[in-house]
């Protein structure tokens, strides 16, 4: 068991917008080890992206962050931006959702990769160019020398995402965060990119955090899974325990998410059990369990007391007063 690369404890993030306080993340804790893939699953607005951006220090100024995030034992929160910049891009890197918008449209692709290198290493332009071309090859882009000089709009979506990965890997980071990295791609490309990331993870012995709303993705590729809702972690377990045969989902929300996935075996013309309603407004969170307004099994104690995330089974934590029994709906 290697040492944890990243340890996050009781992370909280809040903003003030238009005179209201918005709590995006409300006490999140997790840890990742090198070589492990952690999936953070949740709806939009659950706080999954904000948590990771808080760790990277990419949130706008004026955001209130509290808690702890340690990268290799070094506390990241509370560092000044110039200190954090030394780690950003070099030890921890991020790949974003929409490669069309995440690359500067007026800058050549190769230059954007070279920028990542030259920010952290003192190398000449020529040397950086050579390294960038190597990186383009690493992410399996053909004709790398030619692609170096091209602009983002000249590449397809999948290739742009590969370029983003190349940028992220420029300085051989220990931690790679993929924020919905495949959401904007078509299914075939999705699989290719995921495979690529996992291969590179093995080659470089990185820890990989994948943020997604796609449970299927998590089931296929992740080692550990965290489910977030309304800024809190509501269930946490190794992937094997949650999905597949004998899956033991406990928290009602996770169960509802799984139930909402259409299966081929379902009888035709039956209603899909979607989760009705919407996630709560983060500036006006209800007391008690945040999922209670949408949960069929909510009882009075659910609405008054917020459930606490606790390890009720080895390696498996959840936050629910009336969890499911052994994976079934009960």
């Amino acid at each position, binding site marked *: 068991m290697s040492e944890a690369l990243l340890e996050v404890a009781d992370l909280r993030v809040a903003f003030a917008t238009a005179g209201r306080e918005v709590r995006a993340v409300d006490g999140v804790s997790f840890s990742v080890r090198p070589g492990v893939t952690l999936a953070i699953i949740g709806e939009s607005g659950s706080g999954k992206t904000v948590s990771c951006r808080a760790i990277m220090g990419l949130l706008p100024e004026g955001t209130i962050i509290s808690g702890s995030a340690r990268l290799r034992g070094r506390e990241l929160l509370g560092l000044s931006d110039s200190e954090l910049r030394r780690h950003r891009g070099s030890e921890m890197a991020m790949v974003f959702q929409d490669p069309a918008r995440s690359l*500067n449209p007026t800058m050549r692709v190769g230059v954007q990769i070279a920028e990542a290198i030259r920010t952290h290493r003192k190398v000449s332009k020529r040397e950086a160019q050579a390294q960038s071309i190597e990186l383009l090859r690493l992410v399996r882009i053909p004709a790398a020398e030619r692609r170096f000089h091209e602009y983002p709009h*000249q590449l397809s979506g999948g290739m742009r995402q590969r370029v983003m990965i190349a940028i992220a890997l420029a300085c051989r980071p220990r931690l790679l965060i993929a924020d919905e990295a495949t959401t904007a791609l078509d299914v075939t490309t999705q699989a290719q990119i995921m495979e690529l990331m996992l291969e590179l993870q093995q080659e470089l012995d990185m820890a990989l955090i994948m943020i997604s709303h796609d449970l299927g993705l998590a089931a296929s590729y992740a080692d550990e899974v965290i489910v977030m809702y309304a800024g809190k972690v509501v269930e946490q377990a190794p992937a094997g325990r949650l999905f597949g045969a004998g899956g033991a989902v406990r928290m009602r929300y996770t169960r509802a998410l799984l139930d909402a996935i259409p299966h081929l075996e379902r009888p035709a013309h039956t209603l899909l059990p979607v989760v009705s309603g919407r996630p709560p407004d983060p500036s006006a969170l209800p007391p008690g369990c945040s999922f209670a307004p949408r949960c069929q099994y909510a009882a009075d104690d659910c609405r008054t007391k917020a459930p606490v995330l606790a390890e009720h089974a080895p390696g498996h934590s959840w936050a629910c007063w009336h969890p499911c029994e052994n994976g079934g709906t009960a």
Partner: protein
Amino acid sequence: MALVQQIQLQGGSGARGSARRIAGSPALRLVGRRLLAAIPVLIGVTFLTFVVMSALPNNTAQAILGLNASPSAVAALNHTLGLDQPFWQRYWHWLVNVLHGNLGTTVNGSSVNSELATHLPVTLELLAYSLVVSLLLAIIVAVLAARRPNGVVDRLSLTVSMIGLSAAPYAFAFLLIVVFAVKLNWFPVISGSLGSTPLSFLKATTLPACAIGFPLFAVYTRLLRADLVEQMQREDYIVTAKAKGVPPWQVLIRHALRNSMFTLITVVGLNLGTLIGAVAIIETIFTVPGIGQDLLNGIQNHDVPLIEGIVLVFALMTVLGNLLADLMYAVLDPRIRYGSSNS
């Protein structure tokens, strides 16, 4: 052989791959189309001017001969000057002359061409001075302001630019005169001629350039600052740059400013035509011998050829300004220059 000639025809001194690419690209065709579209605008503007001037009571001949001239003398002069012809005929004559390069003669007998030749460069130099200085200052201030939105520099720049937007150029001109020319005596109050040395030129034109440039500076600063801040806050590629660990100044300048330049150049081009009013007044106040003064004199004398000539020049400037803005996009924006994706 044929290829070399083709490149020479298209590229001129830049006869390389870029020339070939631009010539074949949608960019040049765009320019061509815009130029064609500009012609009706020019004709429309000059024609309208003619119509308006003809529709108004017209006593040019009277003005020349004086109030005591006999009606028959006035009528005779009208006939000599061709002022009794219907306006479309006069316009046609004028247009034909213009296409031959002759802009006609003023009521004073001098040729419009020579008037413009002496006075237009002065105005152009003044305008160039104002534009360059206001642009440079705007870029510097906007970048400093965008670095820390709502910080000290930002608020200060917003206040100053608010004043610049709201100040009437003529009122501001007097403020400048009182402070800099009268009290501090750094600059002459009136210019007269521009002198022959660069220093005398600067002395004569700095105050008028400030008067013209202050509102321009205000507009550019606001625009650029808003664009920069918008990019820094909204655009994903900025987040990518930050995620790479790029220092904030570099993110601002290498990524955001580069993209903002498009919008800025467009606005500069589009605004070019609106400057005529300010230029005319400022030149009058500071007695700069440019075409602004000519214009005002011409209007007083109902000097149609002179007015038409100046209107043509300014309409041309507007049109060219718009064209420049479009052209900048076509040439600089790689998305247009290199066409659509080719995976």
